[in-house]
């Protein structure tokens, strides 16, 4: 009897050691070091005029805004804002990317939103979810005080107290009470999406997206994967930019972000947000076509320049793949990841030669999918409901620092596991991290995510096979 117990205990310990050993074997290799050739640059096949426009457009993308253009050359910042330039948030691994961060091998910087809070004498308090080593974030409130749906972005900061906002004080224009909203589980977050290669996405006909989705319908059904497209309420065409594919075009994407993130009213979003009378310093729209002056021959407003920058910005090229990464690519398809993270799409005819009828590799179907209670953020955007998200394009993922819409993790393995809302373990006995802070609608074991079947497949792989997939993803 004693011997049996001894044997059982020894076997148990041996199993634990083996399990721990294998668990340590699969891990996110982390953001890829080194430069990716061509990243952050325009297509080399642009015409000279297009290339010249791109150069100017990139300067606009990098331009820093102050309230009225006195402290910095750009103007229109506020009354509320999350950032003071496009490039501030779209900075990893280079301008045009996603959130910068300390863990970057290319450009290790602290979250710039921390310093922004008090830049130029501003009196903002840094909200608890903005940290030096965390991602750049925006905040959305799920509901209004009266219980009706909100869903809009609430600027983290205001211009109150800044030297270039005289007379605007925190009593007139207070910051939102984020602590109270957090306590009420009424605030969710979004991180910046990278903008590399988006001209290709914009140039993809609806029919290509629809055909691509239709081609995998039966395979998706077997794994419980649905999928539909978000669309414009006016012309009915597929919208494809943003975390919920809520924006139709790059121009629209830029216009909304300019007003929401930097507080710059523009020709698409003409009215100032949070327009408290003592804190509005510029006529609207703050950014517009330059009728009176055309610096360097470019009379377009910032919006057109931002859209051109994104349109002509080449996609990230994947790194050379190791054997493991090549195995991972096959495994990625075999277990069903590629049913949503579609590897290849093609553009239609375009007036821009680099975008004209070419194939590209976004690893997204640009459809929206139910991701279950673990990821649900309660926000409706167009046809995308509270738990629906666009399949995040994976190109460039190898050099990204933060994952999922709210940047809740920097660990790729955790990001994969978070696709499932079914189990509390990752299938290998390891307890998942508690992300309830980020998921106000988390319901343990609700099993509504369309990715549950694929994640089950992933968890059924051996640690080495899972590692292959991680290595493949970090090669993108």
């Amino acid at each position, binding site marked *: 009897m004693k011997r049996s117990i001894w044997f059982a205990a020894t076997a148990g310990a041996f199993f634990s050691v083996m399990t721990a050993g294998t668990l340590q074997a699969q891990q996110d290799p982390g953001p890829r070091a080194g430069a990716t050739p061509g990243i952050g640059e325009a297509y080399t096949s642009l015409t000279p005029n297009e290339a010249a426009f791109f150069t100017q457009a990139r300067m606009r993308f*990098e*331009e*820093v805004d102050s309230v*009225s*253009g*006195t*402290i*910095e*050359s750009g103007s229109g910042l506020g009354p509320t804002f999350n950032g003071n330039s496009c490039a501030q948030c779209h900075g990893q691994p280079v301008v045009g990317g996603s959130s910068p961060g300390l863990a970057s091998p290319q450009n290790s910087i602290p979250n710039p939103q921390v310093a922004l809070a008090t830049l130029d*004498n501003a009196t903002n308090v840094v909200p608890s979810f903005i940290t030096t080593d965390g991602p750049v974030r925006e905040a959305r409130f799920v509901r209004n005080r009266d219980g009706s749906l909100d869903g809009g972005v609430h600027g983290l900061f205001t211009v109150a107290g800044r*030297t*270039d*906002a*005289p*007379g605007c004080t925190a009593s007139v224009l207070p910051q939102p009470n984020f602590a109270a909203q957090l306590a009420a589980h009424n605030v969710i977050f979004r991180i910046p999406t990278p903008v590399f290669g988006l001209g290709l996405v914009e140039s993809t006909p609806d029919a290509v997206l629809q055909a691509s989705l239709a081609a995998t319908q039966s395979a998706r059904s077997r794994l419980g994967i649905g999928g539909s497209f978000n669309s414009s309420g006016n012309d009915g065409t597929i919208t494809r930019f943003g975390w919920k594919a809520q924006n139709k075009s790059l121009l629209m994407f830029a216009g909304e972000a300019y007003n929401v993130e930097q507080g710059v009213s523009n020709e698409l979003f003409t009215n100032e947000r949070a*327009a*408290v*009378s*003592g*804190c*509005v*310093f*510029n*006529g609207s729209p703050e950014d517009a076509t330059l009728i*009176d002056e055309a610096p360097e021959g470019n009379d377009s407003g910032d919006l057109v320049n931002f859209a051109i920058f994104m349109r002509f910005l080449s996609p990230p090229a994947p790194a050379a793949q190791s054997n493991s990464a090549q195995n991972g690519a096959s495994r990625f398809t075999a277990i069903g990841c590629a049913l949503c993270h579609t590897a290849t799409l093609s553009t239609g005819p375009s007036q821009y030669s680099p975008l004209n009828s070419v194939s590209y590799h976004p690893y997204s179907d640009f459809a929206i999918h139910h991701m279950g209670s673990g990821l649900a953020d309660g926000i409706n955007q167009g046809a995308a409901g509270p738990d629906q998200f666009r399949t995040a394009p994976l190109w460039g993922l190898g050099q990204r620092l933060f994952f999922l819409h709210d940047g809740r993790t920097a660990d790729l393995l955790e990001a994969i596991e978070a696709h499932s809302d079914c189990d509390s373990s990752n299938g290998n006995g390891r307890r998942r991290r508690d992300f309830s802070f980020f998921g106000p609608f988390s319901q343990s074991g609700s099993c509504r995510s369309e990715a549950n079947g694929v994640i089950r497949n992933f968890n059924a792989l051996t640690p080495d096979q899972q590692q292959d997939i991680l290595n493949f993803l970090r090669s993108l």
Partner: protein
Amino acid sequence: MFLLLILIGLAGSGGAAAQPGTCAPDPALQQEIRNAATRQPTNPTAFDENVGPFLALRQHHPDDLFVHERYQDAVQQFGIEGHLRMLTQEYQALAIAHPSDLRYRYLGARALIGRSTPAALQELNQLIGENPEFAPAHQSLAEIYASEIFRDEAKAAAEKQEFLTLCPGSELASLPRPLPEPSPLLDQAERLLDQGSDPNPVLGMVLQGLQSDEWRLQRIRPFDWYSTSYKREAQQALQSRYWQAWSIQVRCYRRANQLEKAVGLLRSMEQRAAVLNNSDPMYWDASAALARLYAEANQQELAAQKLDFMRQFLSSHPDNRRARQLEELQKVIANPAGPGMS
């Protein structure tokens, strides 16, 4: 003779008479308006405080034309873009709510003066075309046509004549109203620092000076009294003041032994300078400020580099004032023990 005087008097009136209550407020109200106006603003940026007495007056006399005019004047005098926008919206709403009341139609047009003056001119001209005896509209037109940007001497004289005929003895205002002067605080702060003053109050002066100058700019930017080039010059002047302010701040931090702050601000100045086009006038100001700060910290190589930038700028943009400035800066840097290098 007496009969002749009566006849002349009648002829002088031309048969025209202002609509009752449109030339001047009654004496009691006039006194109330004077009382509201006697409060001198202590802080020009304190909009609510400065406009408050006129707002209170309007609440007591919600239908009085002159009270509304003075309230509008106060918003125009102390307000910035957001206040002006609200004023326009409010009076447009009042005009819509009182479609048969000429006063509100007039006030709606008057609220546009200074910000959308061509639109105000159009509405006021239309108004007097239909109601030639409405004196306040002639008054506003006369004031606008007498202004520098919308100057039309013949029309100004004609409208003035109409107004004074309808309202003899009345006065016209001069538009636009005077701007506040640029703040002397930055220059004072610099002098105090050179004289070895405590850096803490100097830092406060710098901040206050910048905010006053920003406010002044906000009193220029929304108004069409000022030309685009004037607005641009005012903005560039203020950008230049920021470089002066940051430079003083770095020196204050150094003096107060807050070296981390000094280094941080100097770094951000460098970052700001790095994105300036080398033909931008700010490039000159940035280089001058940085040259001096580096020289003060005995970083001669960096100071020399900035002086080189200034020389290059000067060779492509010859300018006597800048040439003198460069010469003086070179002397100061060469003689670090002298004044201004403490």
